[in-house]
């Protein structure tokens, strides 16, 4: 069974989703939770079976799909993707478990199960077309979730979300077809297999063009400044579960794809575009942090802070060294946990008051103490307090980029202070002071169902903040493989200098870990 565990992980939820049509709508919630729990169990099993001493792909499977055109169903997992897969399974599980009362809940749960298939599929696919397939397919369930269960502007938001991403990924598709054509020219055979592509060394000009083509697809998904405008709408209108999955998993597809595709395929172009992208990332960090400060709606604050942190992930990725990339992958997990949890928390208060405007609240700490505590912990984690999960990721990302540029890293560092300002002021507005609105006086505190989602997230936030080694080790191992590949493949002098030779200076990574403890 372990030989096919990845395929099972991908297609089990979809199959369960199809069978779910038969389940009565009064029992669908239990069915969804059961399926998602089995899926999560399988994902955990995958983790145990995973050999963290191997840097390459594990549990690979290959089935010919369109061999005449070089398309094969290839899946595999390494340290980079393993934890995101587990995260996806985890969030679907707690997402379904904590679903409140909603209309058409059966459709929603089935849609979530299909969404899970596409999410896991994206992270384990090792064939560009199969990757693209899941990447595009993931838009459809999300479109439906935002469009059918969202707020008043839901249709505009969902269509905007779909078209933005769709347009970007079509450009990426052209890039992929180009890449396959180069492979065909070099070897006489069509192939879309990523591991085959890794062996291809392209001239610098081609690398630059293809990098740009892929960049459009990925940057819109992340979303990087200036392509980020769809995200606040999508978050603002999406139901809680939609925002949670979107922030925790779907956005990670873009940053993951940078590491999986852009860096190893185009090392020279990555170096060439490092500064422009870093500048974009820093604009994204600072600008969205400032925008977040100006928001009146707590969900928008969380949404913009989420974009801001995605900027740090990009910065870490484009540090192009082991520390930076490891940090950015860790931060992907951390950001998933923390911003997912924050969206949950916003959902909790929205369910009670049906408003997200901060001025409607105030003094909630006395009314809902447990809620205020959990919110406080998550907020601190989001700000990047040491001993929480975000700190490790942010620290490593920035450390990595510090080796490339001191000034830019300092700028990004200040943005974290801005992050503290808007988050703390939002917390102050909502939780401290007198209870000003009568309606707020008797709000019930978080209930059991909500705690089911929030307590595990809190535990993870602190556990991985104190002891990140369980994740960092396998991630680090795979990242070393990627950086080595990039160093060997790079052709320009500049790139050879910028991308460190891992085999030479091994062991640097242990230092930040000690500091984290």
């Amino acid at each position, binding site marked *: 069974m372990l030989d096919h565990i990845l395929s099972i992980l991908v297609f089990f939820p979809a199959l369960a989703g199809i069978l779910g049509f038969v389940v009565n709508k009064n029992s669908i919630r239990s069915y969804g939770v059961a399926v998602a729990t089995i899926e999560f169990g399988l994902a955990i099993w995958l983790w145990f079976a995973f050999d963290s001493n191997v840097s390459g792909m594990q549990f690979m499977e290959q089935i010919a799909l*369109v061999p*005449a*055109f070089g398309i094969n169903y290839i899946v595999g997992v390494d340290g980079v993707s393993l934890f995101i897969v587990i995260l996806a399974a985890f969030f679907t599980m707690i997402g379904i478990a904590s679903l409140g009362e909603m209309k058409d809940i059966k459709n929603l749960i089935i849609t979530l199960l299909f969404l899970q298939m596409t999410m896991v599929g994206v992270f384990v696919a090792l064939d560009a077309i199969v990757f693209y*397939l899941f990447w*595009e397919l993931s838009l459809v369930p999300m479109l439906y979730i935002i469009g059918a269960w969202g707020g008043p502007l*839901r249709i505009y938001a969902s*269509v905007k979300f779909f*078209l933005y991403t769709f*347009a970007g990924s079509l450009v990426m598709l052209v890039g992929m*077809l180009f890449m396959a054509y180069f492979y065909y020219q070099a070897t006489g055979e069509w192939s879309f297999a990523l591991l085959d592509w890794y062996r291809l060394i392209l001239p610098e000009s081609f690398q630059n063009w293809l990098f740009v083509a892929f960049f459009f697809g990925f940057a819109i998904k992340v979303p990087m400044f200036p392509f980020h405008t769809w995200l606040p709408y999508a978050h603002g209108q999406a139901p809680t579960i939609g925002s949670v999955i979107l922030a925790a998993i779907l956005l990670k597809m873009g940053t993951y794809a940078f590491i999986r595709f852009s860096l190893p395929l185009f090392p020279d172009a990555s170096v060439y575009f490092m500064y422009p992208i870093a500048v974009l990332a820093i604009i994204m960090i600072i600008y969205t942090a400032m925008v977040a400060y100006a928001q009146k709606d707590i969900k928008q604050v969380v949404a913009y802070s989420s974009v801001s942190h995605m900027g740090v992930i990009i910065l870490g990725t484009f540090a192009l060294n082991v520390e930076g990339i490891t940090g950015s992958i860790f931060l992907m997990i951390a950001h998933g946990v923390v911003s997912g949890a924050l969206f949950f928390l916003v959902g909790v208060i929205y369910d009670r008051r049906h408003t997200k405007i901060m001025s409607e609240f105030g003094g909630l700490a006395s009314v809902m103490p447990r809620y205020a505590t959990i919110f406080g912990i998550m907020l601190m984690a989001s700000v990047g307090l040491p001993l929480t999960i975000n700190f490790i990721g942010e620290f490593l990302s920035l450390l990595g980029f510090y080796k490339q540029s001191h000034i830019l890293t300092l700028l990004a560092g200040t943005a974290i202070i801005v992050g503290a300002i808007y988050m703390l002021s939002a917390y102050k507005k909502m939780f401290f002071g007198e209870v000003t609105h009568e309606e707020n006086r008797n709000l019930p505190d978080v209930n059991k169902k909500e705690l089911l989602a929030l307590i595990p997230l809190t535990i993870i936030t602190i556990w991985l903040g104190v002891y990140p080694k369980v994740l960092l080790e396998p991630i680090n191992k795979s990242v070393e493989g990627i950086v080595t590949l990039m160093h060997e493949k790079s052709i320009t002098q500049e790139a050879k200098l910028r991308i460190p030779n891992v085999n030479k200076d091994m062991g640097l990574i242990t230092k930040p870990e000690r500091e984290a403890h």
Partner: protein
Amino acid sequence: MLAPVNVSIESLNLMTLVPMLIPIIGALLIIIIDLFKSEQDKSLYVMLSLLILGVDFVALVDSAGVFANNGTIMGVFDVMLIDGLAILSQFIIVGASMLFIPLALTHKRFHEFSYPEFFALFLFMIAGFQFMVSTDNLILVFVGLETASLALYTLIAMHNRDKSFEAAIKYFTMGALAAGFFSFGSMVFYALTGSVEINKIAAVLAANNYEDIGFVLIAVVFLLASFGFKLSMVPFHTWTPDVYEGSAAPLAGYMSIVPKIAAFIVAMRLFEFLIHSGVVWLEVILYIGVVMTMTMANVWALVQTDVKRMLAYSSISHAGFVMAAILIGTTQSNSALFLYWILFSFTNLGSFSMLWISRQKNLPAHQQSDHSYDKFSGMVKTAPVAATIMGLFMLSLAGIPPFALFWGKIYMISSAITGGYTVLALIMALNSAIAGYYYLKLIVYMFMKDPLTENNGHVYSSNATLPLRTIIGIAAIGTIFAFIVVNQLLEFVTLFVYNSGY
């Protein structure tokens, strides 16, 4: 005193005519049955037509086998040309017809299907298209084209609505103009080269090194205009939405597939040698035509308020997309054309059939047209299965993987890249993004809006019967599970296209 002509029957190779003769004989059979005993139920004619088309299909399988073994076959004084293109396109023509004809078995009674002439004309039309694709003689192309078109005009008019008459007349007028252009273009070619056979024209033109380039230009412009009408290329597309709107939905879907593949084949035979011979301005004209057709049709489709008109513009856009294959003119692009069109015929016939099963005889007061977007709002609440299938067809048309059209789309874009048309590849990709919007619009109406008026979902399948559901089921299965057969299809198509020398 003329010498007696000695021709042996064997050298005529009459077997090449068999696939065309089958529908002709079938059509005559249907008329004869009507002579002996009229007022029969339409189901008799539907099933007879289906059987005849089935036999035709088997005959095609047979000639495909012969082609695979012996290569291209000429016959009947070298007028018939049975090569890979002819066989593949006939497969599409006959296959799509077999999917179309059971759609006549509707729940409601529609005027045209009660006439046996409808089915006879339908079979004559198929024979016409089959002749058109399996020859490189411009005269036979013309005969086939006119046989098929005249039959088609009548089929449209038989729907017996004001709009249908308008559509038929419009189509007829435009078709007549196109026929005029075609014969004029052929005439110029004949004057230049003394032949009406495309390969001889090509040979003569190549031999004299295109010295009469001015006349070649005139001929090509006329032929291009003629095919522009038939393929509804911008700016010759204006008839298309009106004609589609006026015809019955399945016939509109049929028109977006079968006449076009026939025209594509002739265009492929005619224009590819011209492009390959370095007639640069033709490449430029075709390039502009392809880009205009894709983009403008997409933009017009965005603003439609009627689903059927939207689908009409969308099929113009798809035709433009596929026309790119002729511009690129490599084996890969020509194979992509067939792959695309086979997958397209499933999806597009499926979506037009979905409109057909919701056909209303009388419009309710709040509806502007029979298939307005409003009609479909909130469909998922009342008719979830129908809404899901319709959504599926829309996603496939938009090119979302892993549904059918995605595979055609990537192969087509890839062929543009391989052929060196990088900018075209980008334009094609971006057009898919524009197209995404209007397909999405229907999905938004079906899945995200609330129903306008109280209805119990019956309206969406009021016309449905078991045969119609079966056809839609086949189309849906073909759309979803395309990824399983794409490889075989691709290898088969590539082999046939390559062996025909395209």
